[in-house]
């Protein structure tokens, strides 16, 4: 089958680019099911370009740059590219803010799955978050309560359009329940997130050499806020003067300049390092050097790729007590220390429960390693292929 995937992809830095990278990496090995892959990706900044060769031993990938983050006409652009590519299946790898930071452009882009279905293409959406669990204010969408309510109503309408796809896959059981009960959907399925890294077959070293390395990883500024982590770090510095805080990643595209603002505000805090964008080849080093991975989230927007990565590298994690993340941790066999969201003292205490107790660090890291390696993304890709085949039989 020929599969078109609407997504971001490295070197593009849009959200879900890493998920796409790993998904496509393994999809390219499924010769029994797949003949060709077309990536329908967003425009890159000047000077950058997508690089896919026609490597032997891998399924060929054709890249079509057809949409632009923030553009109002992304759905139309995507429809045109899909028609020209004429795939058997169109897969969307998206979340609510995939196509734009602005409300209207984001919503218009999310009409694309419905338009594909209308155009007669078998359409599957991998939806990484749902409107009902997004804290709009913290995600950068809500300005005041009236506006927030209006956005949520608008979001409900967009969700109904997304649910016109043949199948909508989500990564958390509660999302299935919400979409079925609230929208009466009968085309929603649970698909595991999967681990990005291939099992190495052995438990990585849980306590690297050197002083405590406290790391957070992601795209920051909306619901991933660094301030509470920096303030927690300040509180644990007197007891751990050599400790290092690594903020690995970039601004969320909706909040440009956020990390620079944090850097200036907390310029007096020693031992802080901002890595900027972390390329795929640097990911193992960044995780490998860390003692503990922190999730300074104020709300969640779906399953966490970073949690799966931390697990794949056998790392201990410190997580906020937020419904989705707690549920994911339990259901998928992960472990971690928890803190009260937006509470620096609670976060500092949770970090110390890890870095002051190597045996606990090792215990969490081991559990997370086993959980992450239980279901690598190559197997998740098989789940999708089974569903695609079912769809094509109809």
């Amino acid at each position, binding site marked *: 089958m020929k599969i078109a995937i609407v997504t971001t992809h490295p070197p593009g830095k849009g959200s879900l680019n890493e998920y796409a990278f790993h998904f496509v990496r393994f999809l390219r090995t499924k010769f029994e099911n797949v003949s060709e892959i077309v990536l329908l990706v967003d425009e890159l900044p000047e000077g950058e370009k997508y690089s896919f060769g026609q490597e032997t031993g891998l399924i060929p990938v054709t890249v079509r740059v057809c949409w632009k983050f923030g553009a109002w006409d992304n759905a139309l652009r995507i429809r045109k590219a899909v028609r020209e590519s004429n795939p058997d299946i169109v897969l969307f790898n998206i979340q609510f803010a995939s196509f734009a930071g602005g409300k209207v452009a984001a919503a218009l882009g999310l009409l694309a799955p419905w338009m594909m279905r209308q155009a007669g293409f078998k359409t599957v959406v991998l939806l990484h978050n749902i409107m009902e669990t997004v804290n709009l204010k913290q995600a950068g969408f809500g300005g005041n309560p009236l506006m927030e309510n209006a956005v949520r109503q608008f979001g409900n309408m967009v969700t109904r359009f997304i649910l016109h796809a043949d*199948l909508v896959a989500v990564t958390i059981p509660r999302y299935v329940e919400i979409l079925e009960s609230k929208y009466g959907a009968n085309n929603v399925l649970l698909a595991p997130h999967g681990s990005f890294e291939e099992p190495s077959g052995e438990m990585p070293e849980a306590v690297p050499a050197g002083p405590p390395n406290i790391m957070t990883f992601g795209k920051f500024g909306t619901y991933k806020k660094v301030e509470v982590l920096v303030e927690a770090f300040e509180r644990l510095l007197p007891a751990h003067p050599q400790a290092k805080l690594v903020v690995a990643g970039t601004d969320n595209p909706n909040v440009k300049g956020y990390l620079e603002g944090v850097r200036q505000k907390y310029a007096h805090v020693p031992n802080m390092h901002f890595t900027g964008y972390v390329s795929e080849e640097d990911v193992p080093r960044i995780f490998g050097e860390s003692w503990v991975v922190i999730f300074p989230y104020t709300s969640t927007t779906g399953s966490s790729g970073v949690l799966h990565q931390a697990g794949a590298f056998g790392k201990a994690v410190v997580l906020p007590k937020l419904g989705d993340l707690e549920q994911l941790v339990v259901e998928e066999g992960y472990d971690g220390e928890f803190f009260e969201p937006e509470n620096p003292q609670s976060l500092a205490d949770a970090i110390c429960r890890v870095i002051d107790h190597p045996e606990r660090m090792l215990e969490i890291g081991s559990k997370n390693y086993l*959980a992450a390696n239980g279901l690598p993304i190559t197997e*998740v890709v098989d789940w999708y292929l*089974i*569903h695609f085949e*079912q769809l094509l039989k109809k």
Partner: protein
Amino acid sequence: MEMLKTSSGNIAVLQLKGRFDAHEVVPVGAWLQEQVDAGRVQIIINLEAVNFIDSTALSSLVRGLKHCREKGGELRLCCLQQPVRVIFELTRLDKAFTIHATQPEAVDALQ
């Protein structure tokens, strides 16, 4: 978890008992691979005595189904308990697998 391996004609049958999760996947996956490698690609897995299944275990069944189909065969399931059936419905894998109410029914369908 207990594994009872039987056969019915050219159909390989595996009855599982207990909790089918990440810790139990390896022997089941190995048995499935053994059958496929030996060309026995008509397979029934009886889940009557399985009270829990997780995503890793589901994934091993998906892999088995895929390998059987690639060789022109089929992997069918039977006798799902309600909690296990719920997981298949949640993941919509109940649409991908053919699931029979009883083992004899599954055997008849594959013969």
